[in-house]
């Protein structure tokens, strides 16, 4: 892997809300920091005192055990105190407003609030009003920046670069915050992105984001360095997006045959959880080219880096 010499200090923000607004240098700084944190997770005592005395709150309005757990492990490995709040969407409708909830939490003086919400822009609403840092752990259809960052880290580790790659993202782009963050991330780092799926799942104006659009999975993966399959939300069946799972998997499910069209060392990625046999064949998910579990491992490292950098990156010695 190339080292860029980018310093952690080139990321100085109060909040991490999306990848759209980050520069190449900022993204690189987060990835560099994540690499240095990865080693901690391989120790027998997986803990450093870097964020001792800091309080991190996870505020999840949408259930997501894996993302929340990943953030929590990241915070704990840096010795931060963590509090997890899960708020059922149904109670949020009747109960206090998002702003009231957040202001109450802030009154307890947390350093970072990590929020997952089913509405786009909810983290931005908090970030505008709170003094503490806000991390977007996924907002509506908008962005999931730490997912985008862990995907970038995974590709960087495997390919040694993030520029001049062909990245195919396949599936329900319209409803995917993972796709949006990855489009911004890979474009900013200098790679080419092609998205594919049925037109019902490809919103208009995608070319204006600088991506190529295809309605054919084989066409999209031809010559690709990275194939990223999106999770199909099964409840979309019968909502006019596609007729049946059977037909969807026939035309947009990745199988072994497709891999022959891609570059020989092409990576297969998936943000999880998998619908085996729908968007991805089991033998591909478990195959040699799959980096799906590395993505999960890198999730912790990237989130450690984000929490560390948002805290000001003060105890610089600990990161090394």
């Amino acid at each position, binding site marked *: 892997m190339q080292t860029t010499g980018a310093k952690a200090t080139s990321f100085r923000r109060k909040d991490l809300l999306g990848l*759209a607004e980050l520069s190449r240098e900022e993204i690189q700084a987060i990835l560099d920091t994540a690499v240095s944190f990865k080693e901690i997770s391989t120790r027998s005592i997986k803990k450093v005192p870097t964020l001792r005395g800091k309080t991190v709150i996870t505020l999840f309005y949408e259930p997501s055990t894996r993302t929340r757990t990943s953030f929590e492990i990241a915070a704990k490995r840096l010795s931060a105190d963590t509090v997890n709040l899960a708020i059922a969407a149904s109670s949020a409708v009747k109960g206090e*407003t*998002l*702003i009231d909830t957040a202001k109450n939490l802030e009154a307890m003086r947390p350093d970072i609030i990590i929020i997952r*919400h089913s*509405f*786009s*822009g*909810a983290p*931005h*609403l908090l970030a505008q009003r709170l003094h503490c840092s806000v991390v977007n752990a996924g*907002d*509506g*259809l*908008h*962005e999931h920046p730490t997912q985008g960052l862990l995907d970038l880290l995974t590709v960087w580790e495997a390919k040694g670069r993030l520029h001049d790659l062909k990245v195919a993202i396949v599936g329900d782009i319209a409803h995917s*915050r993972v796709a*949006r963050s990855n489009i911004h991330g890979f474009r900013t780092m200098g790679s080419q992105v092609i998205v594919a799926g049925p037109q019902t799942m490809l*919103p*208009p*104006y*995608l070319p*204006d*984001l600088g991506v190529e659009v295809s309605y054919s999975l084989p066409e999209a993966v031809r010559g690709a360095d990275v194939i990223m399959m999106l999770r199909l939300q099964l409840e979309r069946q019968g909502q006019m997006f596609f007729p049946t799972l059977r037909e969807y998997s026939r035309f947009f499910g990745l199988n072994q045959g497709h891999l022959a069209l891609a570059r020989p060392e092409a990576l297969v990625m998936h943000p999880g959880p998998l619908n085996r046999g729908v968007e991805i064949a089991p033998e591909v998910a478990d195959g040699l080219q799959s980096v799906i579990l590395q993505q999960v491992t890198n999730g912790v490292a990237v989130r450690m880096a984000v929490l560390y950098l948002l805290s000001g990156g003060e105890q610089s010695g600990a990161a090394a």
Partner: protein
Amino acid sequence: MELLLKGGLVLDPSQDLEERRDLLIIDGRLAALVAPGTLPPEGRQVVDLTGLLVCPGLIDMHTHLREPGQEYKETIATGSQAAAAGGFTAVACMPNTLPVNDSATVTRYILEKAAQAQGVRVYPVAAISQGSEGAILAEYGDQKEAGAVALSDDGKPVANSQLMRRALEYARTFDLPVISHSEDLSLTSNGVMHEGLVSLQLGLKGIPAAAEEVAVFRDIELARLTGARLHIAHVSTAGSVQIIRRAKSQGIKVTAETAPHYFSLTHEAVRGFNTNAKMSPPLRTEADVAAIKAGLADGTLDCIATDHAPHSVLEKEVEFDRAANGVIGLETALGLSLALVQEGILTLAQLITKLSANPARILGVPGGTLQVGAPADITVIDLQRPWIVDVQQFKSKSRNSPFHGRNLTGRAAMTLVDGKILYRDNENFSR
């Protein structure tokens, strides 16, 4: 009591007049319109309007006053004050109150409250269907007798085409115009802003321009079928302008309005998840703005109406998806519209016509003229006055304007209804 307004430049497109004149008002009516200095001041209250423009009172044919039912957002009294401060002498108020104005009782209640407020004229618009639920016709005959001037299910577009046909036919029976909020809700689905690059980037569900255009086309074909008077509310897309232009050229009885936000802002205003830029129909693109301006210039769009839609922080300081649709507009409409004159898109006479005579004609209400004998509903405008929009200064109860902080030139200096001064700007009349 006689009131002499002297020294102003009188602009009255209804009589092709643009000259300095003095106006004499006796018992709330225009008694004389004469060369400056002709009438002696003795025994009369005199107001010097030198340097100011004197026009027929502005009429906003699309206002939401929120009373009855949501008085925390606006009342007939506060809405009336906001209207007067914005230069309006009359407003037509939409029926989506609580309860919906689908009966003469509600219309009479509104008129009674308006009389108590002693403000601008208030013209109730009655619901097309009972409860605006889109199923059963409301009582148009009763409503007309009670004082309703038009019919609309604004905010709750009529989905059933057969009901729309019957509504147009039944409305024609009582010579009432139907004001259509034209929107195909199945295409809007759960969209919250214009479908375009910005919605894609923000991850907000989009409302395609076609959601409006499909419905505008349907309503126009039904107007052709029934011969009824159709008025299309808040036109926001280039396609709608084109459809209306074609319909007018074919002689269909259709008129249309747009709102200042549709020629002053684009969907870019939503960036940052700004809920004050959320309304229905949504802000569109640069190309749509250009088409709206062209539609105003060539007469395809007859009126500028505010779609003043007050909401409190309870509805606006929330997640974008949850935020209510609507922006207030009574106190910014004139300033924003004058920009069209400054840009050379409309003449001043054309603009004033779209803000007074045209809405009066469509609604069949008095106004839009300074003819001797007409009620003295007058708007005095300071065309040169630079000002900065400050929502804290608004008379409206609500603050949901996307124009806060905007620099504008020109605003109402004085507003008179029935010869009574309802509003005067102290900057102009400090003497």
